């Protein structure tokens, strides 16, 4: 109407400092790629990435007690949001250690020297021989982290869509950059990209429907509008369904899980670790927020669907994992099954369910990172030894690595004194507290099926004699060693002394509106 029609939004830059640090480092990283000499790039990028993650985490901790809506309500820096951001930063830090590893592959790090060179071409061989490293992965990595951080604190649908894309686009690229088995990697990237684009479209379509009904994209306003007009919710239920499709795709819930095994298998293992651990945290964070805050009033409509999807996801993931012969594909299906367990916490639609989901994500993220650290280390002449049969006798030849992997398997199987057990305990508890007995029974059945294939890995590693073309454990640099040590420590500590973390999650309380 008058001159200040487009008033600049009020932004408290201190409050969003963790985001700014990561974004700034990512931006500087791009400039480094264009300006710095090739030899110095890796060092600079490593400093930038690790420095940014640590600084962002430190800032986050220093602001831990603050709860506020920022940037005109577009982001909600509340308790669960901060806990999830912290978790994403810590998991990313460990994932960064895996990405930085370059001692395992004799040719260099996990990434193709130049993604544009044709697989198997003379170009590629020459670049490899010259020892080129692809340092663009670092800015991409930081942008993805930025997207994830924003994803869990987005407080309106548009913000959520933008952060979804900021998170996903770099991941599509990272998935296609494997140094070994490049065609598989490129196929993975393509598949991930196309299916991911579909899911984004679903999300956007859902956003439009919800906006059409409620007249707002703000979560709080949507919630109020739904409360004001009870009964006539067909349009908005369609919208919720479409948004759910978009988000459930990201966590790999059945029936939107088809991409998971191919992408997990094709991507460089360090990137898979990053994706498997942090994307799940981010996407579940977003699901929790949108369903608890915006659609909480309609919980009777979406709960049943969520329970069904949770049960399906647990069962399909566990059953299909049984017949896998490739370790990465097996872990991919196992991660689908794990997503089902987390969905039980989501579907409980209670403060207890929220806390259980966050604890499960914490346990799952670090266990997964550790698993991929080990997968990176187990190699034969052609790269990582993916076939399970090649792992025969590994536990006896490399007791420490074998024991670490066994602990991860036991944790995923939910054996007590590991983080996975407390996590399962928490989600079962949240489900039973809302009288959902059938899903818990199904979860128990899936756990047993899952125990079969987790147990089988231990059988192969410990009870079988090594084969002729067996794999060996390559000694990694300090990066992967540290990542593995952190993962084991978290998995065991959360299993034996989970109280501090439970307290932390408990104090975080519930979402701000």
């Amino acid at each position, binding site marked *: 109407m008058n001159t200040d029609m487009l008033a600049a939004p009020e932004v408290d830059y201190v409050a969003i400092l963790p985001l700014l640090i990561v974004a700034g480092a990512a931006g500087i990283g791009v400039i480094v790629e264009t300006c710095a000499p090739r030899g110095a790039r890796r060092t600079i990028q490593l400093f930038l990435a690790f420095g940014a993650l640590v600084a962002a985490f430190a800032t986050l901790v220093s602001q831990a007690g603050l709860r506020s809506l920022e940037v005109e309500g577009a982001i909600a820096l509340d308790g669960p949001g901060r806990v999830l951001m912290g978790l994403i930063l810590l998991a990313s830090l460990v994932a960064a250690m895996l990405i930085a590893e370059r001692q395992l592959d004799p040719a260099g790090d996990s990434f193709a020297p130049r993604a544009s060179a044709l697989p198997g071409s003379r170009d590629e061989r020459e670049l490899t021989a010259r020892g080129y490293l692809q340092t663009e992965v670092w800015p991409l990595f930081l942008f993805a982290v930025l997207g994830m951080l924003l994803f869990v604190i987005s407080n309106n649908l548009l913000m959520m869509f933008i952060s979804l894309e900021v998170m996903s686009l770099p991941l599509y690229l990272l998935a296609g950059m494997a140094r070994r088995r490049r065609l598989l990697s490129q196929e993975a990237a393509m598949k991930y990209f196309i299916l991911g684009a579909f899911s984004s479209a679903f999300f956007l379509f859902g956003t439009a429907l919800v906006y059409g009904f409620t007249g707002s994209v703000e979560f709080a306003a949507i919630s109020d509008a739904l409360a004001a007009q009870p009964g006539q919710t067909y349009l908005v239920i369609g919208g919720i369904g479409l948004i759910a499709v978009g988000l459930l795709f990201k966590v790999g819930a059945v029936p939107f899980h088809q991409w998971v095994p191919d992408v997990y298998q094709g991507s460089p293992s360090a990137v898979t670790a990053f994706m498997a651990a942090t994307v799940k945290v981010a996407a579940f964070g977003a699901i929790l927020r949108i369903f608890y805050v915006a659609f909480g009033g309609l919980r009777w409509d979406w709960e049943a669907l969520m329970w069904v999807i949770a049960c399906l996801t647990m069962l399909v993931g566990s059953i299909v994992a049984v017949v896998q012969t490739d370790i990465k594909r097996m872990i991919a299906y196992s991660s689908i099954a794990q997503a089902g367990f987390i969905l039980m916490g989501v579907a409980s639609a209670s403060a207890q369910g929220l806390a259980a989901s966050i604890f499960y994500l914490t346990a799952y993220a670090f266990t997964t990172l550790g698993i991929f650290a080990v997968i990176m280390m187990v190699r034969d002449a052609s790269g990582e030894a993916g076939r399970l049969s090649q792992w025969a006798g590994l536990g006896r030849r490399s007791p420490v690595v074998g024991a670490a992997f066994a602990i991860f398997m*036991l944790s995923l*199987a*939910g*054996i*007590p*004194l590991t983080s996975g*057990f*407390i996590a*399962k*305990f*928490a989600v*079962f*508890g949240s489900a*039973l*507290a809302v009288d959902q*007995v059938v899903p*818990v*029974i199904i979860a*128990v059945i899936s*756990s*047993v099926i899952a*125990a*079969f294939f987790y*147990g*089988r890995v*231990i*059988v192969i590693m*410990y*009870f*079988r004699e090594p084969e002729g073309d067996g794999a060996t454990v390559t000694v990694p640099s300090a990066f992967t060693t540290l990542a593995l040590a952190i993962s084991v420590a978290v998995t065991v500590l959360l299993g034996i002394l*989970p*109280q501090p973390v*439970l*307290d932390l999650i*408990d104090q975080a309380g519930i979402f701000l509106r």
Partner: protein
Amino acid sequence: MTTIPWLTILMVVPLVGSLLILFIPRGSARLVKQTALVFALATLVLTIAMGLQFDGQSTAAFQFTESYPWIPAFGISYSVGVDGIGLVLVALAATLVPVVILAGWRDVPDEAVKGYFALLLVLDTLMIGVFAATDVFLFYVLFEVMLIPIYFLIGRYGGANRAYAAVKFLIYSLVGGLLMLAALIGLYVVSANELGQGTFDFATLVGLDIDPNTQKVLFLGFFIAFAIKAPLWPFHTWLPDAAKESTPATAVLLIGVLDKVGTFGMIRYLLPIFPAASEFYAPLIIALAVIGILYGALVALGQTDMKRLFAYSSMSHFGFIVLGIFVFTSWGASGSTIYMLAHGLSTAAIFLAAGFLMSRSGGSSAIAAYGGVNKKAPILAGFLLFATLSSLALPGLASFVGEFLVLLGTFARYIAVGVIATIGIVLTAAYALRLYQKVATGPASPAVEGISDLKGREVTALAPVVLLTIVLGVFPAPVFNVVNPAVERTLQIVGVTDPPPVIGVQGGEQ
């Protein structure tokens, strides 16, 4: 009441031993074994020292109690303590571990000793803990974690088909364990609804007034876990495989002690926490127990493999133990408890004696491979005979006391069941004596030709088992003094009293 944390010490000592073993450099196999034996014996000595201070007249439900908050967010604490039943089983575990360490001195090649003996000691810790836990969550944790050392003991050090047996054991146990977890959380939710704050404390849970229908559901979750562990028919098929593929030492701990966790769980947790459901399901469980008694004995009769025969025979004996628990008489329950102890000892005797025989003659466990052992190795054959007699509950041996009391308790309530169960005794005698006859008498078979008799180490390992079996058979009073108060307290909670002795009453009327 006591300032010395006995039970925690008992759990820590073997654990320290197993950690120390991990730091012993490769190549010093002898040192590993000696360390294991020393720590296992130290645990036994400490157990005896604790047992001597146990007050049989005490009115407290548990003695030597300790309690520290562990995960307050879920109402979980580290709480331990023993009643008479727990004490007896802790003592059984502490006794058998040094025995099997000594007996299993040469079970595994030198390069594998570290893992083997470290795992045996870890198992010692977990077994003591599981019988001492008074927090149901702690019990569950130890119940599940116990699977892992056994899984490795079978899977890494067992026979040809060990991987299959280990996985089968793990899956069966996990099915039960996870059902129990679901029921456990259900119990927690019930306690949270009733008290406002969920808890896993045993005494508090016993005090809850749970709706009978809820009880029936939760009972099943716990019961299936215990029935698989015990194992009760029809949950038993993992046991013969696991027993056949295990080393004798592992088999003794698995069947002699670990499986007792199932029957212990029934008497400790099912009866007091779910009294209404226990009464509701009792006929069904008694039927399963009787089927188990007869089925196990009949199948044992047809076995051609010694270890499988022992497994089925144990299954038959577990039927007796479960029967004694669910007839709700003090004779039955006391009998079951002493039978648990006696069965642990007789399992140790028979598996170890048979193990010594097998290790001397190429390792085959086929009955047909043996014959005439009493001519070539009379001491070994003597132990074998003793073990056989202990298994068929010869009067004067510990198992007789247990079996007799169980049947007495059964007859007092269900005469028909008692009659059928007694048939099991006859069958037991048949397969046990048949085994001894085939293996030890007659002409010496080629496998037995040239075997040596038992050495000092082996006799030393078996002697305490034999001695205890005889002492408890002749003079069981000390055990009863310890066990009876706990049994009476349990039955009081269930709310049943012993039926009056039929003959005595008739005599009075005349």
